């Protein structure tokens, strides 16, 4: 099925993600600053359990059923993603109204945004639970977006499997948005084309890890080719099997994998520690990552204990990433050393 010779992938360790959104902002300032792109966040981080971005995306369809048939999908609206709210800075700072005016959001009060349910989570105090889920385009092996496009306007690069919207071919039909079960495609209402995460291919082409990965202060993200047995991606996904795709049942074979969250101890009705009930319900994690998530968690816990007792564990050492550059599967070139097209020439 995969027409690409090699496939780039990312592993995100949810036990290290602190929800700081540096990835989100790094991506924003690099790619989606233009007019028409204000509401776009190719990279998002949401608090789970939660409704995420766009609101309720897991119930919006798309992808494939167990037989490989395309599933009807919903086109997410800007409201569901969250609009790029405008603020009346001028009026607030210079409008002469004193305390009577405040830095309000212009227009109708919003009801959703890209990170609206931040830090809310679920469960009843004290057994509340949540964790952070960063998402980019999954650069799927079986990309529902590409397969949905009646214009063949989505490219999957032969050399590394990066999926991009061919904005020259795209006519804004938005079948890709409906088909992507992860709802990671946005629509540019000015240019009338779909736009999405490009796995920072201009950086990749220069040996530089994507901005979201290289700028992640939590050191959450591993980057590299899936088939490189020396690099962390292969070890985490294939060898140790602790990194799992999100919603594998969507049938698109994502190339972003997650190390599942371990979660703190929970309490019984008296407030004493309840060792038998995980704080994050297994059923919830299974719903996200499939049943093998329990094996992954068991492996993580066993290796953590081994590291504690003996000081040795290949898996824990990988996840610790003593040397940050080792996370990037060779895509560790310093961007400031890369010579790209000069802005002055480009403008």
């Amino acid at each position: 099925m995969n027409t690409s010779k090699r496939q780039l992938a990312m592993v995100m360790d949810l036990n290290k993600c602190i929800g700081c959104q540096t990835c989100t902002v790094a991506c924003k300032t690099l790619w989606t600053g233009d007019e028409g792109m204000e509401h776009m966040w190719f990279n998002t981080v949401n608090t789970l359990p939660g409704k995420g971005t766009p609101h309720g995306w897991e119930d919006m369809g798309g992808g494939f059923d167990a037989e490989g048939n395309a599933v009807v999908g919903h086109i997410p609206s800007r409201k569901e993603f969250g609009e790029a709210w405008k603020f009346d800075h001028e009026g607030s700072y210079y409008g002469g109204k004193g305390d009577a005016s405040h830095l309000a959001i212009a227009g109708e009060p919003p009801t959703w945004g890209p990170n609206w349910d931040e830090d809310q989570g679920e469960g009843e105090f004290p057994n509340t639970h949540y964790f952070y889920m960063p998402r980019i385009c999954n650069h799927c092996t079986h990309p529902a977006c590409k397969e949905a496009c009646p214009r063949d306007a989505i490219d999957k690069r032969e050399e590394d499997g990066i999926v991009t919207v061919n904005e020259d071919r795209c006519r804004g039909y938005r079948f890709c948005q409906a088909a992507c079960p992860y709802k990671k495609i946005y629509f540019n209402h000015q240019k009338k084309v779909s736009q999405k995460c490009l796995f920072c291919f201009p950086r990749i082409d220069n040996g530089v890890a994507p901005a979201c990965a290289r700028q992640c202060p939590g050191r959450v993200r591993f980057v590299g080719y899936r088939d490189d047995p020396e690099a962390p991606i292969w070890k985490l996904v294939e060898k140790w099997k602790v990194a799992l795709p999100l919603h594998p049942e969507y049938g698109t074979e994502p190339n972003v994998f997650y190390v599942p969250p371990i979660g703190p101890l929970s309490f019984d009705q008296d407030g004493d520690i309840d060792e038998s009930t995980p704080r994050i319900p297994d059923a919830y994690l299974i719903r996200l990552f499939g049943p093998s998530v329990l094996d992954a968690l068991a492996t993580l816990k066993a290796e953590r204990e081994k590291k504690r007792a003996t000081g040795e564990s290949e898996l824990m050492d990988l996840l610790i990433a003593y040397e940050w550059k080792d996370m990037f599967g060779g895509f560790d070139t310093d961007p400031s050393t890369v010579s790209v097209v000069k802005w002055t020439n480009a403008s």
Partner: protein
Amino acid sequence: MQSIHATRRAFLRGTAIGALGLALDLKTLRPVFADARLPPEAREYTGYRDVYRRKWSWDRIGVGTHSCTNCASGGCSWNLYVRDGIVWREEQGAPYTQTNASVPDYNPRGCQKGASASALYRSPARIRYPLKRVGARGENRWKRISWDEAFDEIAAQLVDTLSTRGGVGGYCENGNNSDFGPSWIAMVRFFNQLGMPITENFASTGDLMTGATLVLGNPVPGGSSDDWFRSDYFVNWFGNPMSTRIPDAHFITEMRYRGGKYVSVTPDFNPSAIHTDLWIGVRPGTDAALALAACRVIIDEDLHDVPYIIEQTDLPLLIREDTRQFLRESDVIEGGRRECFAWWDGRKRAVVWSASSAQFEQDKRTLKLGPDDQVELEPRNARVTLLSGETVKLSSAFTLLRRNLEDYDANSAARITGVHANVIRRFAREFANAKAAKIYMGAAAGKILHGELVQRATILMCALTGNNGRVGGGWEEMTFWELDGKILSAFHDFPSDLVPGDMNTIYPALMGMGAQQAASPAFISGSLLMLLNGGTYAEQLNPAYNDPTLRRTPEEFLKEGIAKGELHNVPGEELGSPDVIFNMFGNPFRHRRMGERLGRTLFAKARLVVDLTLRMDDTARHSDILLPTAGPYEKLGFKYSVSYPPYLHLADKAVEPLGEAKSDWEILSLLMQRVEAEARRRGVRTVKTYRGVEYDLSQAYWRFSDKGRIGPHEDEKFMRLILALSPATQGITMEELRANKGVMRYTGVSQMGKMWCGTSDYRPDEPLVPYQDYVVRKMPWPTSTGRQQFYVDHAIYVEVGETLPVHKQPPRSGGDFPLVMTCGHTRWSVHTLWRDVDILLRLQRGEPVIFVNPDDAARRGLADHDYAAVHNDLGEFVARVKLTPGMQPGQVHIFHAWLATQHVGGRASDAITPSPTRVTNFAGKHGHMVNEVGWFDLSGNDRDTRVDLRKYTA
């Protein structure tokens, strides 16, 4: 499986269309063509790729960081990508080399604020030209003026005031968004040379850990954050490092993968709880009870480290049972030393004066015990005969502690804290049994009324278990990597006279700073200024908002402290009527509790309020002239330096200032030239400083500019002076820094002694662990007893029952309301900076929110995102409700530093936080407990504030 596209093409080309019989027979009907050429089929479109390639392009790359930002993470290296003279984007430089192979490296320090700093620095809030108010204060009506107009008006007003009232006629409000370079130096030199005081707000914001000052002789002890990785039991207490220490948080998550456990003690299930092994949801403000119960378990179960306690703490020292005071040498020997304390020798059956005592013979001072010493930790029947001839019974502090802990059995503590007794026991045992246990204390521990007690109780846990000074262990908050050269450049009259690198001139100069500071106006207590002159007196001293067990009113304690002269730097009544107020590096309308009252008090009295500011904020709105300061990418500076990353960070000037903005050094240089010129024009010479010392105003610029050697555009000279005069940066040059992405590892630590991180020898290839001087080298701690000092015998502490750490119920601050409003630093801003940046607001809810437990909200008829009026005795503010099941029932939480202008109604949460005074903060002149700024000062607080919520409709 076959490609869908292949299938589709075959389908189109042949069978399906044929089967549908749609092939056109045009025998009778023929189209005519202007051109029968086919359009190019399936054009190869690749132009879009070039569009994205061009997006990732730049003219050049600068290096820098966010120098004038009170970001306590301590610095991050950024590459600044410049297009057409504007920083359009920044990305971490990530130049940090691993300390050694056993710990993860520091890359790629940074956070979302840093990654959007260029958006802040060119945001609509940025002041681009000097502005003069044309409406009423706070009304937001302005006109653009020239720098000349601004300087002329300000200089005239300054000379008016200085020539009539002297330095007492005005002051500078100083916030914490300063650098460790020319900007801060500019402020200190300017006001110091003019003889006007500057407020110090470390305590006013509640960052000053007076409990740590008492116990450790260091208000903010700490080490480097890679030492966190080496912990076996990392306890976050009161903090939220996953949100507030973003660049360092990975050392915690990676510590877990090393096999260490991570525990968090906070009332709500906050972002730092989610990655824990155990989260302890203590009732707000009951933390001391939890810590003391843990201490009780540790001692009861013999998990305490007796040799460490005997050597390193005051717990074996003797207390007189009659007075509850330490036994002092002066009690028993004629002419004996007051700061000399004793332990009981079990062999000699007699008191022995501890060689650690502050007034012990200086050359013999040590924590090391002699081979024959037999310190009894809990002597029975210890007695001593006083000078009076009277014999008194003595108990060790440890005996009193044991007695004290009787109140804190696990079951009693469970009732106070809401934490199950088994959880308390398990926590205590795990803590004590860990190879290295660390308590990372959040700054919020300074921001409740009884935070001092929480600090003392939690440090006690570390001391009982011998963790203070252990690799990967010990109590820490946040400390500075002080650059002594910065202090010298600011306070020394002529720093260029010092010989760079020659410690023989540098050390005496540094030692002389103390005396010079005492004579110069320098810093006054911002919290005392606010209390006495800011219009908050009644609320801050309201007994109903304070500890109900006090037998006197807080005001009586204050008056006593002033009368006895125990409070230093008390801003008197005269300063309460300033003619001129400057504001730099901060937003006191926000950072002071009830700060908005400045508009009715100090600001209302001033003829002229000048704000040197990056952007419009609550204080700027209430000022008269706004002077636009250059942003960190537009001027030279060193990042405010914190020990978590042991690296010096250069903020280089990457681009020209926006609009007409100027660096702080240039602004104040030019202004000082005008002041001098105006003084000469008027023939004004001798004027008096705030402290009454006479000086020559007509020479002000000559002195300010270091005899004219450092001109308005020569701020780089200060950068070089700092490097050359700081023990932490010996051997580092500007050239090397620039070649190393503006980042180099420190080469040493400050020699400023008792404070900050200089409590250990520093090795560049090892994480910094505090307290090595005391624990390894056995030098006495910088306390009266020379030990970690848990017993405080100042009369106030005896009176209020706090000679040893105890738990006191949180006060009803703001009135008898059912909800406790906690507060904390947010991941989304550095105080008010970044609060109003659009792209970050869009990642929140765009306006202020208050986190509420769903049950508490439901009981008040509040739904998610409703506006709530949050109210108490002091009034109300309005915020959106955010339903959060992780909030403890009875607790509501608002992250700090929303600008007042972001709230409906123009009031922020600070307006209703009365910050009751902690009466022990009025103590002083007692051994190392000296009441002075940055050491032991009146601490602001807000996290006991009681409120209720009701639905708000406009």
